[in-house]
């Protein structure tokens, strides 16, 4: 679910519904599952995709909240090539 929501954010907010590539990288580091999603779109304003307060009942803005709910950490990292966006999500899993 977190990867689904993250990909939707990239499609909607980074590529604005247009075409583009994204790279999904999955890694296990001891008891941590590390998921990285990289795109090559113009950098997104992180503040714009922050989760909304849940006491506001409105249709949008739930995806980021769901990502943060199911993962232990969700962070934007500096993209290695200096272009695009790099999202890292980490989940502690039972070894």
């Amino acid at each position: 679910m977190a990867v689904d929501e993250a990909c939707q954010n990239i499609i909607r907010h980074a590529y604005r519904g247009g075409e583009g590539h994204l790279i999904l990288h999955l890694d296990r580091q001891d008891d941590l599952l590390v998921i990285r999603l990289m795109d090559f779109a113009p950098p997104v304003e992180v503040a714009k995709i922050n989760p909304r307060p849940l006491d506001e009942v409105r249709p949008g803005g739930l995806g980021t909240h769901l990502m943060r709910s199911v993962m232990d950490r969700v962070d934007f990292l500096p993209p290695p090539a200096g272009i695009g966006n790099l999202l890292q999500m980490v989940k502690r899993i039972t070894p």
Partner: protein
Amino acid sequence: MKLHTTEIGETTVMALAGDVDLSHSPTLRKALMELMFQRRAVVVDLSAVTYVDSSGIAGLVEAYQMARKNGTSFTLAAISDPVGRVLRLARLDRVFTIADTVEAAVKG
């Protein structure tokens, strides 16, 4: 996603099945909005939904808000475990009117 509607008296029961994700949520939204414009009482049977994402939930929230504005009833019924989990994560389980069964929802 499969979507099937049945009329029971004044109420339309919309049964959803399968994955309600970004590729199907526009269809769901359109179908719900048509019912809202007709000011129908709506029960959404979620018993056979295997996955729902934020776009599917957004369609349900939009219909809920429109029903409130119209003064019509909008009830989620027979919620499957995957849907219940997402509703709880989004804290929407306390917002929607939820019934255990479709029959109970239709009776009101």
